[in-house]
């Protein structure tokens, strides 16, 4: 399985770390809505077909990527930087909380 990193080009899946389902919406850090937090942590769409997910090019440029991949065929149809795809950056929280 190859994923084409926008910086580095097509690279083997072994260079990447799977960060999981990209369909989840993280509640605002100040939210006290238990249901929303529980759902964010535990519940998954688990699509059989075109799946939006987050990968990190941990063995390369270390960018977080928003990937569209078919879970029935493993064919990757789209790759973008996660920040451009509207995924919330976690850097801000990590910096304030020390090493993550």
């Amino acid at each position: 399985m190859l994923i084409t990193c926008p910086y580095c080009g097509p690279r083997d899946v072994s260079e990447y770390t799977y960060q999981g389902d990209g369909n989840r919406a993280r509640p605002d850090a100040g939210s006290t809505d238990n249901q929303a937090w529980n759902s964010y942590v535990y519940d998954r769409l688990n699509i059989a077909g075109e799946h939006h997910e987050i990968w990190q090019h941990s063995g390369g440029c270390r960018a977080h990527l928003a990937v569209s991949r078919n879970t029935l065929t493993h064919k990757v149809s789209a790759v973008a930087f996660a920040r451009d795809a509207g995924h919330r950056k976690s850097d801000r929280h990590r910096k304030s909380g020390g090493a993550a």
Partner: protein
Amino acid sequence: MAEYSALSLLKNAFSGNRDWKPAWRKPDPKPSYDVIIVGGGGHGLSTAYYLAKEHGITNVAVLEKGWLGSGNVGRNTTAVRSNYLLPQNIRFYEHSMKMWENLSHDLNYNVMFSQRGVLNIAHTPAQLDDFARRGNAMRHLGADAHLMTPAEMARRVPGLDVSKSARFPIYGGLMQERAGTARHDAVAWGYARGADRRGVDLLENCEVQGFIKDGDRVVGVNTSRGEIRAKKVAVAVAGSTGHVMRMAGVERMPIESHTLQAFVSESLKPFLDTVVTFGMGHFYMSQSDKGGLVYGGDIEGYNSYAQRGNLPIVEEVMSEMLALFPSLAPVRVLRSWGGVCDMSMDGSPIITTGPLPGMYLNCGWCYGGFKATPASGWCFAHTIAKDQPHHFNAPFTLDRFHRGAVIDDKGQGATPRLH
């Protein structure tokens, strides 16, 4: 008594094996049943068997989209064990172990259950301490376990590199002697035949394409072989859980589907009479009765329904094998395959009523469902028949994640690829 006796084998051999009768019927679907079980794998078939045997509910259909046993019950690496840490898991899997010990008699079908032991190998003193703790937890609840020294392990497992120069030196191991392996296809066939003889309809090539609802209540399914109604609809579809539950209108589940690969080597003379597992990665291996090494490692680690994996895991599994058994380097791989695992968010299963009225759910087996086959079906049948769980499966609810009552044996959190 035995249907496949030496005499009958001999007789049929002389008549060209033309007179064997099919082990189960191929009925057409009836318009309605008391219970429909979606999924004709190990768990679905054993559920049907125990519904009929323990609860006298025989107006039952098992719906399988392919052929019986075409999913994970025929794709696993056949290990059976109950070496868990948490009491909920030990009680459940130990119950399963006890059922395995009598399964061939119960089914009158030789499932070739072989209690050859499962040996977990420790590579650091801390890991050995952890194993001792788990072994104590097991013994405390009636399972068996004992620690082994490297010298004892070297005698028990020829070829195991216990030298100080090993890639990951071995400090000891935790052995469960009553654990072992079983012939996975025979388990499916034995349960199928047992259920069929008690009146259960096994409907192959019958794919569920939607659920029929009366308000919120599930009252049947639309299938590739027509509409079938039932008072109770039970779902036991392992890796397809997310896909099937979405058809019922449940969008999100605490489940991710991941592919697990398995491998068989060419046949070797018997040398390995136990199941060994590696402690510095994820690797397990046994030797089949045909002589092939049966082994596997980690799941692929990304969502997949593909029933096939990729090369990085292949390379990892082979390197782990050689870290334990350097002498196996020249052995050739005969074949490999993949199965789709229903990875739950705490690594433990779900056997419960609901989540919709009229529905019952059995899933979340991660890559350990085979050993649970008897107890899973037994508990699920109880849950379906009584509309409440048996105390063995009472902790394995669907809502435990939102209640904070997770059963996370490895303490990995809601990260399925790490379970």
